[in-house]
């Protein structure tokens, strides 16, 4: 009888999220952007626990068709091992721990023809990002309709140029809460989000050498030494990143924790060796660090530094940002 009183905040949150869900199912109106405050979740998840995850039996069983409807192969006879429609191209960029999706949304217009996926272990956060992408796509659709039909209402937005020839710097015209009034290349059809524990199941989603870029942005620092095993960067996990990353592919990292930055460097690069001694073979052999000059030319680094939710928080806090990007080298020759 003495039922626990449900906090008002939670009731409100649940109601809001139900509405967002309902709005997505109806197709008539332009969908409003979801609000982050209703999707907050504790910043940590235990990567060792089973959770209740859904993951494909193998990459060949992964059905991407609902994630990228604009890229579904028109040939209906082409299906994957689980019967889903095939895409015209493969997913090749992954944001591990994408959070609220700032990086995905920032990268989408930069690489409009590249399929990208954000992976996140926390359900609420993932729900937000899925709603956000859905809303962005719907907004783009209505903007495109308007542009094609200028006779309709609101003729004043002359700034809206379809497929605007944007410079390499992404315009911050896209507000998290309001959405955008601009048409972006790709119309956000090339990004999606999936709930997953990549520490366990990354190879279930992506095949050998499938990816061209992996992003690890502001990972959970797991400050305590006995939690270091839960860090997303480790020599043994780096072997898995190397497995899914093609030779020449890039792995981007950014953190505001200096110690974590050194941890990243330590786990991707060989330290100084005593004279004459070769370093012990490890997954460090599979990566090399990219120079500052090369980074300066990479627009993805700018997005990573300024567009992600966490990076904005760090900027507000006047914190430091440490970037390290590594290139996947070719596998070593088999020993004779």
């Amino acid at each position: 009888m003495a039922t626990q009183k449900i906090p008002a905040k939670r009731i409100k949150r649940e109601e809001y999220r139900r509405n967002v869900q309902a709005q997505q199912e109806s197709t008539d109106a332009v969908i409003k952007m979801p609000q982050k405050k209703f999707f907050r979740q504790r910043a940590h998840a235990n990567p060792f626990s089973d959770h209740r995850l859904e993951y494909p039996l193998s990459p060949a069983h992964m059905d991407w068709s609902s994630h990228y409807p604009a890229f579904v192969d028109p040939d209906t006879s082409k299906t994957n091992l689980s019967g889903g429609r095939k895409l015209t191209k493969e997913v090749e960029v992954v944001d591990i721990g994408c959070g609220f999706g700032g990086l995905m949304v920032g990268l989408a217009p930069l690489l409009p023809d590249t399929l990208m996926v954000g992976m996140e272990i926390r359900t609420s956060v993932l729900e937000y990002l899925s709603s956000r992408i859905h809303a962005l796509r719907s907004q783009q659709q209505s903007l495109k309709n308007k542009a094609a039909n200028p006779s309709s209402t609101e003729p004043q937005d002359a700034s809206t140029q379809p497929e605007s020839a944007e410079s390499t710097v992404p315009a911050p015209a896209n507000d998290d809460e309001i959405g955008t009034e601009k048409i972006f290349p790709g119309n956000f059809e090339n990004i999606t989000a999936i709930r997953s524990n990549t520490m366990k199941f990354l190879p279930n989603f992506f095949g050998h050498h499938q990816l061209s870029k992996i992003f690890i942005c502001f990972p959970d620092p797991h400050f305590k030494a006995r939690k270091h095993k839960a860090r997303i960067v480790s020599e043994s996990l780096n072997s898995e990143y190397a497995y899914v990353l093609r030779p020449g592919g890039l792995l981007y990292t950014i953190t505001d924790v200096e110690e974590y930055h050194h941890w990243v460097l330590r786990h991707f690069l060989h330290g100084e060796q005593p004279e004459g001694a070769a370093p012990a073979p490890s997954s460090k052999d599979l990566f090399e660090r990219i120079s500052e000059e090369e980074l300066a030319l990479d627009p993805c680094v700018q997005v990573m530094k300024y567009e992600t939710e966490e990076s904005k928080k760090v900027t507000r806090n006047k914190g430091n940002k440490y970037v390290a990007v590594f290139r996947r080298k070719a596998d070593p020759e088999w020993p004779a």
Partner: protein
Amino acid sequence: MAGLQHPFQCLRYVNRQSAGQSDILIATAGRNLYSYDASSGQRLDVWPQPVDANAEDKSSDAAPASESQAPPEKRRKLSSTTEEQKDAKSESKPKDSNKETSNSWTNIPLVTVAHGKYVVIMTSEDKCVRVLSLDNEGKLQQLSARTMPKKLSALTMTPDEDNILAGDKFGDVYTFPLVPSGEYVKVQAPAKSYEPSATNLTVHTKRNLESLEQQMRQAALSKTNQSERVVLNFEHQLIIGHVSLLTELISVTRPADTTVGKRNYILTADRDEHIRVSRGVPQSHVIEQFCFGHTSFVSSLCVPSFEPKVLISGGGDNYLLVWDWLENEILQKVQLPGSEGETTVRGIWDVSLAPTTDNAEPVKAIFVALEGSSQLLCYTLESDNTITHQHTLQLSGNVLELVGIDSRGSILVAVDTLRQSDSTSAWKSSSQPPLESFRLSSGKWIPVEDSMVIKINSEGTSSLPTTIEQKEQKELSDSMYNLGNLRKRGDYDE
């Protein structure tokens, strides 16, 4: 025989004919390791020596100094409390006087053999990898003991048999030399005072800021207590890691073919349905393949010595998968008796026996046992690399382990002497012989009377105390039948 006796848990056949010596059978039962003459069944040695005689001093001579004061028997959970605290706790606990011995393990679940003259074992509760020498007379003597950070789930050797490969329940695979080379000097990090890696630039909430300040104060207070962990205090390398419970680890050599030379691989399996194919040491950081097809944990991997391209795998699914493992190609799905969610594969063994007078053809057989089942499934590997079920053998107890005895053209099966057939918990009232032997005769495996087996069975293994409490019974049963715990329960969390 009266009373209950420990069943054999591991069997290894040591072929030493090339060295001009007689073959030896290695077996573990309870907390002991036995060596037998493989032709007469004569027991050659027991390790550790029984404690009642003065022999104890003798056995501990061989052990390193730390061995003589090993902590009392204690089942440890894989929990996150610090090792130091735990060690201190267990040390201070009074020794259990009811127990026969004060040693630190109750069973030896993993055994492997190197160069025909070393036996490598893991003793269970103390998580210790021990290397013993096996001399010409079959005597066992401990050469080294190395403590691992977590309990191991698999133990094998690199193809050159000079290095041990050990996979643990935390998903890590280590390699270290069979014989430790010289004195290991631990690379000691300069005593560093604790410094929180978070700074007031990296934490954002008020509460976190407060706790950071608290940490800083704490760090300033306690700069002294930096006790060293005793684990991994030897030369070693971490070569593979799964973020999952590692269940199995095998080392495979693919012989040279027309396009590529001889190549070594390491195959690992985990609780999250994965089978991973990595290159062999020293390139084990290069993952070559994943074999996807199981929908429950994988507990057994078998690459037949006579067909190294093929992998047979099983676990919590009620089927086996036969693979071309380098290509992630399923060649065959083999249905097993029992329903989904209940059937668990305990072991898959490949046996190849040289032709004998009874069988002109060499024997190439695959055997499969299910957890808590007294049936043994017999298969043959066909030329198209699929397996065919021949027949099913009924044994007198649950099948625990199997080994082929080349010199006799037979197989030895270890059966559970304690639990009733087809039960993992109900106990028998008296023991039966721990070993059964079979030989192939016109396409069927038939029981054989073997003087060697009769000899081993007549001597038996170590006895359990005459009165054994229910709780201890359960503990013993759980340590013998623990694969069911690998099944996921689907707990809900966010």
